C-alpha cells in the first residue's frame, strides 16, 4: 500500500515537473513532427513502402525514446543540481519505487508523442495507417513500453552513479535508434552489430510490433521474438536490481548524489 503511494506520488510529481518545462513540450509536440517528415522523405523513393511500419512506427518510437531517454537522464541531473536527488535517496522510501514512479510518469507523458506521430503522419501524408493484427499489435506495444521502461531504469541507475550524465545520454541516443531497428530492420546492418542489437529488449519488441503490423497471422517466428523480448526484459530487470544494490553503496562512498 505504502509502496504504491510512493510510486503514484513520484509519478505525479514527475509529470507535473516535466510538463512544466518548455524544452520537454518541444520534445513532446514538435520532435514527432520533425521525425515524421524526416522519415517520410527518407523513405519516399525507397523500395520499402510500408508507411505504417517504417514511418509512423519509426517516428513514434524515435519520439518515445527521445522523451523517455532524455527526460530520465536529464531528470537525474536536474535532481542532482537542485539537491533533491540526495533528499529522495535518503528518504525512508525505496529509491527503486521512487525511480519506478518517475519512469512510469515519463512513459505516460511520452506515449502522447506516439499518438501525435500517428496524427501528424495521417494529416501530412494522407496515407492509411494499416495494422494487420491489432490484438498482437497491442500486446507487442505493451511489451515495447515495458522494454523501454526496464531499459530506462537500468540507464537511470548508471546515471545516479555518474555525474557525466549528458555525455552518456548523447552517446547512446542515436546509436540505440539505429542498433535497435527503430527506423529500419536490423538485418541491413553488419553482422557484428546485429549481435549487439539482440542484447536489447527493444530490438525484439519492435520486431514484434512490425510483424503484427505487416502480417495478419502469427507464426513461430513471432513467438520466438516474443520469448527473446520477454527474456531480455527479465535479464535487464535482474541486472537493474543488482546494479541498484551496487549503487546504493557506491554513491555513498563516492559522494555522487550531489554536485561536487
Amino acid at each position, binding site marked *: 500500500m505504502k509502496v504504491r503511494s510512493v510510486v503514484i506520488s513520484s509519478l505525479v510529481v514527475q509529470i507535473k515537473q516535466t510538463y512544466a518545462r518548455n524544452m520537454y513540450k518541444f520534445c513532446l509536440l514538435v520532435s514527432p513532427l520533425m521525425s515524421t517528415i524526416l522519415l517520410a522523405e527518407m523513405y519516399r523513393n525507397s523500395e520499402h513502402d510500408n508507411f505504417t511500419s517504417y514511418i509512423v512506427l519509426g517516428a513514434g518510437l524515435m519520439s518515445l525514446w527521445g522523451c523517455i531517454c532524455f527526460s530520465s537522464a536529464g531528470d537525474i541531473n536536474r535532481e542532482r543540481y537542485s539537491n533533491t536527488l540526495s533528499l529522495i535517496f535518503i528518504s*525512508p522510501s525505496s529509491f527503486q519505487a521512487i525511480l519506478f514512479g518517475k519512469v512510469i510518469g515519463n512513459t505516460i507523458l511520452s506515449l502522447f508523442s506516439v499518438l501525435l506521430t500517428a496524427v501528424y503522419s495521417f494529416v501530412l501524408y494522407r496515407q492509411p495507417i494499416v495494422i494487420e493484427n491489432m490484438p498482437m499489435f497491442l500486446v507487442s506495444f505493451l511489451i515495447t513500453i515495458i522494454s523501454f521502461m526496464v531499459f530506462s531504469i537500468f540507464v537511470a541507475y548508471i546515471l545516479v552513479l555518474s555525474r557525466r550524465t549528458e555525455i552518456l545520454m548523447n552517446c547512446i541516443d542515436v546509436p540505440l535508434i539505429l542498433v535497435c531497428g527503430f527506423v529500419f530492420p536490423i538485418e541491413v546492418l553488419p553482422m557484428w552489430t546485429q549481435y549487439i542489437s539482440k542484447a536489447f529488449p527493444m530490438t525484439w519488441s519492435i520486431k514484434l510490433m512490425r510483424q503484427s503490423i505487416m502480417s495478419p497471422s502469427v507464426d513461430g517466428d513471432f513467438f520466438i521474438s516474443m520469448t527473446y523480448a520477454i527474456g531480455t526484459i527479465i535479464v535487464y530487470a535482474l541486472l537493474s536490481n543488482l546494479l541498484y544494490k551496487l549503487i546504493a553503496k557506491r554513491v555513498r562512498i563516492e559522494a555522487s548524489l550531489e554536485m561536487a
Partner: protein
Amino acid sequence: MSIIEVRDLYRDYVTKKGVVFPKKEVIHAVSGITFDVKEGEIFGLLGQNGAGKSTTIKILITMLAPTSGECRVLGYNTYGEEKKIRHRINFIFGGELGVYRRLSARDNLRYFANLYKLPMGDRDKRIDELLELVGLSDKADLRTETYSKGMIQKVQIARGLINNPEILFMDEPTVGLDPLAAQTLRNIIRLLKEQGKTILLTTHNMYEVDELCDRVAIINKGKIVTLDTPNNIKAQMEENEEIQKHLEQVKLKEAENLSRITLEEAYIQLVRSSVDKEAKNES
C-alpha cells in the same frame, strides 16, 4: 543517554585531475573525530568553511559512507543499518536548493510526506500546521520558483519537520534568512527542544550557538579542537592574555554603545510594527 555516537570518524574525498593521465587527489575532510550527543540536547558543530562539519552531518544522516570509524544514530550504524534510522530523523540544509522548483510548497511537502510514509489521514493537517509554523500559509500554492531565498529556506524547514523527527540535523539553517525569519527559526528550535527533540546543528553564527546550544564542538581541519558548553569554552579562554586585551577593547566600545540597541533588534522592531500596522489597516 547518547542518541548519536561518533567514534574515531574519518572521511576522505578522492578526486581525479587531468584527462590523459588522471592524478588522484585525496582530501581529508574529517580526520578522527569522536563525540556523543545526548537525547534532548542541542549540539552545535562550529568551524570554518571546509572544516568538516557538513561532511559529518552527511554521514550521520546516512547520505555518505565513512572512510573509517563508526557513527551510530539511535543505536544503529549509519552505514549498514540506515533503513532503521531514516524514518526517525530528518535534516535541513541551508541555501536555496533542495526543493522542486516547479511545484508549489504544498506539493513539495505532500510529496515528502508520502516519501516519509505519513498516514493519509494526518498528511494534509500536518502540512497545514507546518506551513502555518513557517509562515507560508498564504503562498503555499504558488510555485516555489517564484519564492525568495528565505521563503525556499522556509519550505526546507517545513520539509525537515514533516515526519516529526526524533533527531533533527541542521546544516547552517539560517543561511539566506532575514533576521526576522532567523529569529522565527530559533524559536522553532527552542520549541522542538521543549518537545524533547535532539538537534545537531552547524552554523557560523556565534550568537546562535551561544543562545541555543547546550554543548558545542569546535572543528578545525577535520579535527575537534574543543568540546564543551558555550559557557565553559568562554571560561577556558578568559585567562588567555590576547583574549583579555581584546576583551578590554570590546568593553570600551560596548560602554560607548551601552544605551543603544543593536541594528538587528531595531530591524526586527521596525518590521514587526509595520506588519502590525498593515494588519490593523486591513481589519
